[in-house]
């Protein structure tokens, strides 16, 4: 399910978003300090666009989707993440952890688009 991410960048826009969330519980999936996730309905988009009309560039609207690592990632990357999370020596940086193993190096992954 896609959701709308609304982020505010001024005190007035933040207050506007807070009021929006208070008045319209239904379309609000989750609220953060000055950001909120709205559901993927025309009404939620209407509320978001209305906020942007009022506050211009102080309102950012993005459409985001849930991340599925089994679709978006190759297996070696998932395995590397799991292995690194469960490593024994907690202070080892990933670059050192991956060196000399089959795990992809950080630079390799940085160069790869999802």
């Amino acid at each position, binding site marked *: 399910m896609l959701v709308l991410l609304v982020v505010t960048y*001024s*005190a007035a826009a933040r207050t506007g978003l807070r009021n929006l969330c208070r008045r319209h519980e239904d379309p609000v999936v989750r609220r953060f300090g000055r950001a909120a996730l709205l559901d993927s309905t025309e009404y939620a988009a209407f509320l978001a666009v209305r906020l942007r*009309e009022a506050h211009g*560039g*102080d309102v950012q609207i993005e459409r985001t989707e849930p991340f599925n690592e089994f679709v978006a990632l190759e297996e070696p990357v998932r395995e590397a993440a799991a292995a690194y999370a469960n490593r024994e020596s907690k202070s080892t940086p990933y670059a050192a952890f991956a060196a000399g193993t089959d795990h992809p190096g950080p630079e390799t992954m940085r160069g790869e688009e999802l």
Partner: protein
Amino acid sequence: MSGDSRRSGSAPDEFRVPRPADVLGQIPTGESLHAELAAAARSRGRTSSVAGELAELRETLDEIAIEPVDVETARRRVAAASGEEARLKERIAALRGDVRARRAVDAATDETLGDLESAAAELSSAQTERIAAEQAFEQARKRATRTRDERERRLRLLDRLQNRRRDARQELAREMYPTFRDVLTEVPGGDEAHANEEPSEYEGPAIAASVAAVAIADIDGPVMLGEAAVSWIDDREGTVPVVVRETKNDAEERGGGRSPAHPTRSGDRRPGV
């Protein structure tokens, strides 16, 4: 595009420290006791220990200039270009179907083929436009992202400014509190027993506190009494000549022939403040 040009970099007025006379120039003041006492303290030349930090924050905020970025035009262009591309693809599919149908019955296809050719040319330029529109959108998005760093910084500074201002208000209010308590007994409806130790512990009526705050302030110019304040004082058969005054010049400027040191009756709010 909406909104952006209105918001330049500087801090909005609500973050400026109000002049003492703006806070205490009317009763009811519409302000908290902390704000009243802090205004009284400032009118007497007191500054808080965070005054320097406040000035620095304001200066930094004044220097933040956020360039307006127009992403809306780019979004519109992408939408228009994508729509045009989709329309032409549909038209080409329809024309191809037409050509096949005509060939199946040995009908003439010259005209349809000509249409197909020109539609294909249009599609090609529509695709070029769509790609250009997407690139322009990407550029605008990157510019907007950069200004968001600045917007975020400004918001953080404004939040800090507000917190420091609250600290300053509380500090100044606490400093003024003993003086306030002493005067409280002398104002209509005021009672030192309501004061307790701290501004936050004041339990008495708000109007008495406002009058006392005005009494300990050093502000020039008139203090307007709203209906609520006038009847409050009348009901207690009080007088407020020392506390609430109006200079002759002010009275003349506003076209009133009232004598000095006489409270002004007005609505609950002074217009334009």
